[in-house]
């Protein structure tokens, strides 16, 4: 595919033009309100965008919102009228997705199109051009390099921007991206000298590869064999079961369906994010809970990501973004626990030595 470049000024003009044409722009920007954290949100122009800070919230909420109405009902005399919520999505562009977040969209596509095709998800996917921005290598909680990605991974992105002086080098990675670029080609210039972009990517790769690299296949095997293990209860002692880790996770996709009466005349069926970390996630009407404690619930999260999902869809349900570790108020750490499991696996699998996980 092609490589091009774009100047900051041109990008800004392009965004203005897109907005004028009714395209919604989603980009990292400060959330309104007191916290002012950087999140992916609708922006009105280039000046709102904050690049280079991994957003605290995830991109997924623009594809699977925290709460959305999927059906309505209204009473009309003796009838009950059902109102299907529209699954249409107006054209959008995500600008500045982190590579781990862009990749997560593709990871989740697998389950969203598995036994049932989720129209809400896929219509939004189809209406959205994803432009990612190469990452500078992340922080101590990142481990994209251990899950088959990298700070410069283009998975899930139609185009990727690499920061260079005065603008970005643009790598086109999909046919869709190519078509989109051609549509707006007046804003782009020739690729030019790639030295800076290459150097940026090399620096990022060096940084990320210095962190531990737990071996995912042996972890997966250990998980299969150790459903019953003291490790789980010990591990979960500090966990509050708050689920913040799953809410901010770009690959977690669990939802609950609720019917909300909104007075005697009607109501809505909504789907809301849910989390396996909550006791109510598996609570039966009888009062029985097959996952009675936090140990069992925490195990579910790890198993789903590193054993169940890979068994069904042949890939990990984790892009190593490190958000779960950053958000956890009790200091649970994904990379640390993967290292611990790696070490336990190394006892039964000599090829997985404890040293191996620290090899760059």
């Amino acid at each position, binding site marked *: 595919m092609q490589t091009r470049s774009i100047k900051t000024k041109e990008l800004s003009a392009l965004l203005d033009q897109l907005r004028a044409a009714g395209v919604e722009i989603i980009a990292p920007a400060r959330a309104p309100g007191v916290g002012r954290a950087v999140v992916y949100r*609708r922006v009105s122009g280039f000046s709102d965008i904050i690049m280079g800070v991994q957003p605290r919230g995830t991109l997924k*909420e*623009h594809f699977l*919102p*925290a*709460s*959305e*109405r999927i059906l*309505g009902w*209204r009473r009309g005399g003796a009838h009950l009228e059902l*109102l299907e*919520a529209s699954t249409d999505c107006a054209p959008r562009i995500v600008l500045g997705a982190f590579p781990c977040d862009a990749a997560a969209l593709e990871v989740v596509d697998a389950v969203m199109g598995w036994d049932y095709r989720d129209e809400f998800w896929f219509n939004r996917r189809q209406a959205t051009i994803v432009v990612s921005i190469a990452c500078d290598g992340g922080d101590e909680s990142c481990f994209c390099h251990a899950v088959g990605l990298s700070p410069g991974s283009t998975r899930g992105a139609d185009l990727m921007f690499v920061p260079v002086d005065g603008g970005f080098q643009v790598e086109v990675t999909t046919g869709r991206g190519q078509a989109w670029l051609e549509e707006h080609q007046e804003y782009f210039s020739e690729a030019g000298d790639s030295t800076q972009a290459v150097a940026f990517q090399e620096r990022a790769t060096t940084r990320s590869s210095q962190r531990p690299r737990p071996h995912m296949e042996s972890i997966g095997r250990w998980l299969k064999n150790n459903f019953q293990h003291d490790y789980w209860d010990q591990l979960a002692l500090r966990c509050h079961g708050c689920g913040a880790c799953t809410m901010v996770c770009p690959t977690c996709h669990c939802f609950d369906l609720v019917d*909300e*009466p*909104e*007075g*005697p*005349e*009607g*109501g*809505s069926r909504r789907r809301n994010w849910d989390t396996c970390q909550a006791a109510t996630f598996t609570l039966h009407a009888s009062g029985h809970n097959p996952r009675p404690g936090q140990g069992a619930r925490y195990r579910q999260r790890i198993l789903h990501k590193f054993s169940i999902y890979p068994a069904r869809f042949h890939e990990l349900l984790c892009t190593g973004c490190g958000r779960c570790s950053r958000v956890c108020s009790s200091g649970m750490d994904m990379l640390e626990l993967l290292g611990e499991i790696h070490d336990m696996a190394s006892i039964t699998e000599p090829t997985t030595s404890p040293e191996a996980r620290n090899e760059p």
Partner: protein
Amino acid sequence: MSNQAPSAARGPSADNATFEPRIVAFVCNWCTYTGADLAGTSRIQMASNVRILRLPCTGRIDPLFVMKAFERGADGIIVSGCHPGDCHYIVGNFHARRRFRVFRELLDFLGVDPERITFSWVSASEGGKWAQVVNDTTRRIREMGPMESWPRASTALDDDLHG
């Protein structure tokens, strides 16, 4: 509590003269309910905007009820029970007094005018006082206009906040 689609009289630009407030009264079984009954059987004239919900005691009136009433379209609330010292359960109204002190302050801090709520002591013999509470509250809420600061339940609402 009905939940009709907003009619002209309830819209944001509602003329307060034509606006008919919806008021929900949570009252205790022993004093105020009996007092309200007395007001009715004595044929005292009162505004017809108040719908009464009877509970055992003001001590059972949870701020949740008020919240739910606002969600479902109430413009004003009356909470009423026995005078201090007369509670059928001895202390329920003393607890309610503290609870609603705090709840009013909370509402105020959240930007909801606590004047949307009337708290009164109305005994079984105070039919006239009940009528006055009803009339005063209705007049006050009418002046305040429709409750607009509460996120209402409405099938027309499709507030996808996180989009």
